């Protein structure tokens, strides 16, 4: 993550994700909190409140509690990909009910653009995503092909990918899991499925 150091001052880009901010504060001693205040206002309010909490728990001294890590992951950002409008609406509601921030995409190409892997990605619009949930059967690029592209990317390969399908085909399931999918879920999705999903996601992040 790029940052510039001018004598004692450290400038961090406003898009610095919370997890990386953690690393910075454990690395640099607290005396730099005065520099921090100047760039502070460029961060979003939620990030500001997180940073306050980090400083008060002594993150600058190099330690950070596990609770902090959980709190940073409290509202995971999920990208949901499905070509069916009704299914998109349903998965969005299910995820929001599990306190997730949700972005939807109607096909794999749009998803890749959003993730920064597409041909049409605009500079500076790439958002951090904590999980991707995608339908298998989609026109153009399938969910399986999307999974492969994500796993090939050095930036995104650690992001958990979940595949959903209305068809229970064992070879399809093992193919996806072998390619690195975290989970395979059968549609139609239920609240209990998504709760289980979120539990796995939080477990992975810690």
């Amino acid at each position, binding site marked *: 993550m790029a940052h510039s150091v001018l004598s004692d001052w450290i400038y961090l880009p406003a898009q610095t994700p919370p997890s990386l901010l953690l690393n910075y504060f454990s690395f640099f001693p607290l005396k730099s909190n005065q520099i921090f205040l100047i760039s502070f206002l460029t961060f979003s309010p939620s990030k500001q409140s997180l940073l306050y909490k980090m400083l008060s728990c002594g993150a600058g001294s190099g330690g950070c509690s596990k609770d902090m890590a959980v709190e940073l992951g409290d509202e995971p950002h999920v990208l949901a990909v499905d*070509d*069916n*409008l*009704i*299914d998109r*609406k*349903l998965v969005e*509601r*299910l995820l929001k*009910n599990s306190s997730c921030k949700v972005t939807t995409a109607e096909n794999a190409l749009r998803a890749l653009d959003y993730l920064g892997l597409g041909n049409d990605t605009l500079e500076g619009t790439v958002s951090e995503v904590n999980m991707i949930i995608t339908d298998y*059967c989609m*026109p153009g690029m399938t969910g399986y092909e999307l999974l492969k592209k994500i796993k090939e990317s050095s930036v995104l390969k650690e992001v958990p990918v979940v595949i959903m399908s*209305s068809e229970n085909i064992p070879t399809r399931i093992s193919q996806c899991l072998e390619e690195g999918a975290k989970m395979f879920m059968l*549609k*139609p999705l*239920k*609240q209990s499925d998504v709760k289980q999903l979120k539990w796995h996601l939080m477990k992975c992040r810690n």
Partner: protein
Amino acid sequence: MDLVQLQRQFVDYKTSLYHEGFLDEQFTQLQELQDENNPDFVVEVVSLFFEDSERLLNELARALEQQNIDYKRIDAHVHQLKGSSSSIGAQRVQKVCIAFRNYCEEQNVEGCLKCLQQVRHEYSLVKTKLESLFQLEQQILTAGGSFPM
């Protein structure tokens, strides 16, 4: 009709829809997703289902009228319809879609035409029933009742 009678009518009607296979537990899931923050979730999703289904049914009719039938295209449309009907719990529509896909695979035009007729029929039945259910719900809310009961 007073509130208690309306509520009784609502419960009976809803139970019959499950009993007759028009709706399955996925519809219950939808209702559980509705709360004070999203009071119209079920109506919204079901309305999307109506719009999307009508579009798909028209596409299917058109595709089956062609000289050279594109079965892959038809299958794709039926797959969509099967998916959405399954997601909202419209069980009878979903079942016809399964049969429809089999005829597509066999490239059986007669079978496909028969299924199109059947799916149209099941769709219009479930649409009418859901609209009646929503109407009853509205009447209860107007009479001062609330959900869940």
